[in-house]
């Protein structure tokens, strides 16, 4: 066995293409006589569509296709089919597509789109989630009861609730009654945008034989194919989806996005390639965003500082459609207690339609939002009880022998949040007796997340050799930065003892040729595709050894693989892969074996549905990844500006496959977390429902100048039983706890709490002023009450 490859800094296998500019992204592809698309979007947040007249646009020179809801009244959506390709009878957010035009140039397309006449009857819009949830609220989807939906999502017809997951564990009511102290707080998170550097783009053609071909900046080629086939009533085999390199997704390119519009137009101008590319402005509100959240938490503790009763009420602002968002609601439900063991739980996670942009997957899949609430709540309780916040977390956190909110009993392989807490507390200097400096503070927060996916979400791979014994690996997981192609090469290298240089991972899938993969989401790829790689590699090993055994006339069991050769240790004889992969030829000319290849797959094992009433389940998810972050901050009392000086992060990832890449994921997650935590919010005009900050000038994301001076990153490696070499997911987890840790540090620094994300300088400044006023008031009242001459 050569030196280990897993656990080392193997450089990205897709790096060379990316640093030279060779890597092709969807918008870089050239298509003959490409047509350009302009979409007609609703200017109203909520309106009835009375009429759509496209005849004038269709007659304009250079226009090749026009499509609207009349032509394509087809429903789509990954879990709940609540959306049509184009709005038919009603628009539900500003930006809702009503029609689209394909023309010879982008300018002609835009001119023609302006000539599409749409008659609207405005309806009262709902932007606020509580308003949408209130009884008697105007309905965003009056037909909710008739939509097709997977059985584990529960929309409530006649309301705006598109999913409701209930957790009932133990006896919350009695436990609350028996509590020593009770704390109730409300926390809010606004909608934010993913802001991938590459905006969404999809290209489609329907050929004269009716076959559909799509190139798209997408996270999930097979899900795109599946949903396109369903939506347009086509056999899957007639739909072909290619995904080239993708310039960031963060969940915003999961499921299906622009593809149906491009295909609808392509259907009306067969033989022509049609490209729909949203610009940066549209990217902010017309593509999906992260859902908003209003969380109400009640915590009852006993005299020992142990939480006995915990209530969590999560109201999700899903926006106009919930096709994907309903599963965030579900995931936030079965993870509602975060990294803690709560013996008695009442949890409700409720998705609510409003007339805001469409909520969907965003790195963390609801977890950053609920941790914003939970981790501040835990901090408040600890502070009120006079217990060190790290200590309080350790007292209540999950671990081996503890049970989650669904009643799942964790074992010793589950990952150690306690070690992560201790690790970051130490790294940031979180000792209870630390020296205090005004306006400087430290905060801590935990994180947990499981992959949120259907129980049968699978990944598969194909391994095959080229003539020179280069191993080619076909995957359909997308490497949009997280490093999947590289870790796949590392796993195969490790399994077959083949140098990484002899491996090529084909990471830009084509559904006609590549193996099936459900989606690249849920931090599931290293784990699921990784497992499939090991399975396929073991088959490859068997084939190579069988041929070599016959060639060398030795038993196959005595053979091993080393450095790209099959070796018989006892005799020192070896056959390089080159002599085996296309078949072995004996000196007399006869040949055995044949081109060596293997296909394999991985499907999570033993997952069980949640109980429909209580959501109790012994194994609702495949795995949990735990972690914690701690931060130290400085607050400028004059401006309210918060500077995050240091962030310490620690996660139990099971196995560090590539230290340089996992650090990159963690730095990236921390800074993205800093963005949503302190800067980002998609703001709508409360009258018109239009996004007022839909540009990179007005919606700031972190730049080099916002990066903390120090980021200390560490990992715990409690092997995941069913993980490849023990590895579990990490990509999304890295941004979950950052905002809550900053909020908690803010309390530590200056005694204020910001319960509504993001923590902007303005909010901090206002809170400091309010605190000053309150203190002055208290002082004055105190002086007034104390008679002169009284000895305190």
């Amino acid at each position, binding site marked *: 066995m050569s030196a280990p490859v897993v656990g080392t*800094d193997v*450089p*990205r296998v*897709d*790096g*060379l*293409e*990316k*640093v*030279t*500019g*060779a*890597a*092709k*992204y969807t*918008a*870089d592809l*050239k298509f003959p006589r490409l047509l350009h698309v302009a979409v007609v979007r609703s200017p109203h947040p909520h309106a009835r569509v009375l009429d759509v007249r496209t005849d004038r646009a269709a007659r304009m020179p250079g226009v090749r296709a026009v499509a609207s809801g009349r032509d394509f009244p087809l429903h789509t959506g990954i879990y709940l089919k609540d959306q049509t390709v184009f709005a038919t009878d009603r628009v539900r957010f500003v930006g809702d597509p009503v029609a689209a035009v394909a023309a010879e140039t982008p300018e002609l397309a835009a001119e023609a789109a302006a000539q599409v006449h749409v008659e609207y009857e405005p309806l009262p819009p709902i932007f606020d989630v509580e308003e949408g949830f209130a009884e008697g609220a105007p309905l965003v989807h009056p037909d909710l009861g008739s939509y097709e939906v997977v059985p584990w999502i529960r929309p409530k017809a006649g309301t705006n609730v598109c999913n409701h997951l209930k957790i009932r564990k133990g006896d919350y009511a009695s436990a609350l009654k028996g509590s020593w102290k009770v704390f109730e707080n409300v926390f809010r998170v606004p909608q934010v945008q*993913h*802001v*991938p*550097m*590459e*905006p969404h783009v999809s290209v489609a053609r329907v050929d004269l034989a009716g076959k559909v071909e799509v190139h798209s900046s997408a996270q999930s080629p097979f899900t795109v194919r599946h949903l396109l086939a369903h939506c347009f009533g086509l056999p899957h085999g007639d739909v072909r989806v290619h995904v080239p*390199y*993708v*310039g*960031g997704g*963060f969940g915003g390119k999961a499921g299906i996005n622009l593809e149906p519009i491009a295909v609808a137009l392509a259907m009306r101008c067969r033989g022509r390639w049609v490209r729909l590319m949203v*610009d*940066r402005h549209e990217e902010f509100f017309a593509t999906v965003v992260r859902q908003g959240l209003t969380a109400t938490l009640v915590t009852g503790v006993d005299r020992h500082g142990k939480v006995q009763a915990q209530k969590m009420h999560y109201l999700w602002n899903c926006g106009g459609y919930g096709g994907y968002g309903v599963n965030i609601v579900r995931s936030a439900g079965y993870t509602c207690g975060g990294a803690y063991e709560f013996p008695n739980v009442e949890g409700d996670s409720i998705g609510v339609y409003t007339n805001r942009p469409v909520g969907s997957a965003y790195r963390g899949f609801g977890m950053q939002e609920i941790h914003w609430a939970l981790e501040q709540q835990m901090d408040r309780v600890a502070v009120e009880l006079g217990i060190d916040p790290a200590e309080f977390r350790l007292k209540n956190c999950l671990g081996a022998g503890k049970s989650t909110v669904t009643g799942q009993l964790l074992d010793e392989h589950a990952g150690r949040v306690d070690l992560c807490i201790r690790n970051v507390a130490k790294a940031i200097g979180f000792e209870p007796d630390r020296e205090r400096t005004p306006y400087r503070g430290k905060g801590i927060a935990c994180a947990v997340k499981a992959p949120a996916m259907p129980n049968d979400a699978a990944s598969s791979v194909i391994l095959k050799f080229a003539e020179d014994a280069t191993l080619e690996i076909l995957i359909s997981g997308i490497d*949009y*930065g*997280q*490093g999947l192609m590289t870790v796949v090469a590392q796993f195969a290298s490790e399994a077959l003892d083949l140098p990484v240089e002899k491996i090529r991972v084909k990471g830009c899938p084509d559904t006609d040729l590549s193996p099936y993969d459900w989606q690249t989401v849920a931090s599931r790829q290293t784990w699921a595709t990784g497992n499939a790689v090991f399975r396929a590699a073991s088959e490859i090993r068997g084939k190579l050894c069988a041929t070599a055994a016959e060639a060398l006339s030795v038993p196959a069991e005595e053979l091993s693989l080393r450095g790209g050769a099959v070796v018989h240790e006892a005799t020192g004889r070896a056959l390089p892969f080159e002599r085996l992969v296309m078949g072995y030829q004996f000196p007399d000319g006869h040949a055995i074996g044949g081109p060596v290849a293997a296909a394999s797959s991985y499907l999570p094992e033993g997952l069980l549905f949640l109980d429909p009433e209580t959501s109790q389940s012994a194994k609702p998810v495949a795995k949990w990844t735990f972690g914690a972050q701690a931060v130290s901050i400085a607050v400028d009392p004059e401006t309210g500006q918060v500077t995050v000086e240091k962030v310490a992060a620690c996660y139990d990832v099971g196995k560090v496959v590539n230290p*340089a*890449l996992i*650090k*990159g994921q*963690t*730095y*990236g*997650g*921390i*800074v*993205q977390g800093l963005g949503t935590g302190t800067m980002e919010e998609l703001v709508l005009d409360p009258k018109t429902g239009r996004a007022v900050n839909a*540009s*990179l*000038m007005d919606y700031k*994301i*972190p*730049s*080099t*100048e916002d*990066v903390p001076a120090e*980021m200390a990153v560490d990992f715990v490696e409690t092997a995941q039983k069913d993980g490849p070499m023990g590895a579990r997911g990490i990509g999304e987890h890295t941004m979950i706890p950052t905002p809550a840790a900053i909020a908690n540090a803010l309390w530590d620094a200056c005694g204020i709490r910001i319960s509504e994300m993001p923590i902007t300088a303005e909010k901090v400044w206002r809170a400091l002023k309010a605190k000053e006023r309150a203190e002055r008031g208290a002082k004055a009242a105190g002086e007034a009450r104390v008679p002169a001459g009284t000895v305190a």
Partner: protein
Amino acid sequence: MKKTITLDVNGVAETAEVEVGQTLLRFLRDGLDLTGTKEGCNEGECGSCMVLLDGRPVNSCLVLAVEADGRSVTTVEGLSREGVLHPLQKAFLSQAAVQCGFCTPGMVVSAAALLRENPEPTEDDVKKALAGNLCRCTGYKQIVDAVRDAAAAMRAGAVAGGEAGKPAEREEVPA
């Protein structure tokens, strides 16, 4: 309205007829198929489209193609020559400074301009120089490390080149 322009792109003389309103970004990507230069916003806010115009970094979405007439343009494709990487490209690989890669061309080009002006930048210098290049993936740390690494390698290369008479790694930016 169209106009004929002649310019040097990555050391190659190009003559083309362009619409006067066309941006340099469009011209490079559509006219010359130099798609390494990316469009992230088309309004000068992200740096994905950064190229060197006569050695200075510009957002090519804000420059008209006709403005580049008679001038020299370096794109990411011009930083490596016949398979030999620019020290910055090497450092981006060795420091794991690349994730999705969409910002990478603009970053590398922007950093090349910095190192030309300032061969020994501090961490703050690098952060300042790259403040107009947005990256949503990396958290910037490994990018900043890579730029400083490349600077060190280039200084060492220049010294080695001078002393041992070996050719310097290569001129980082064509004038």
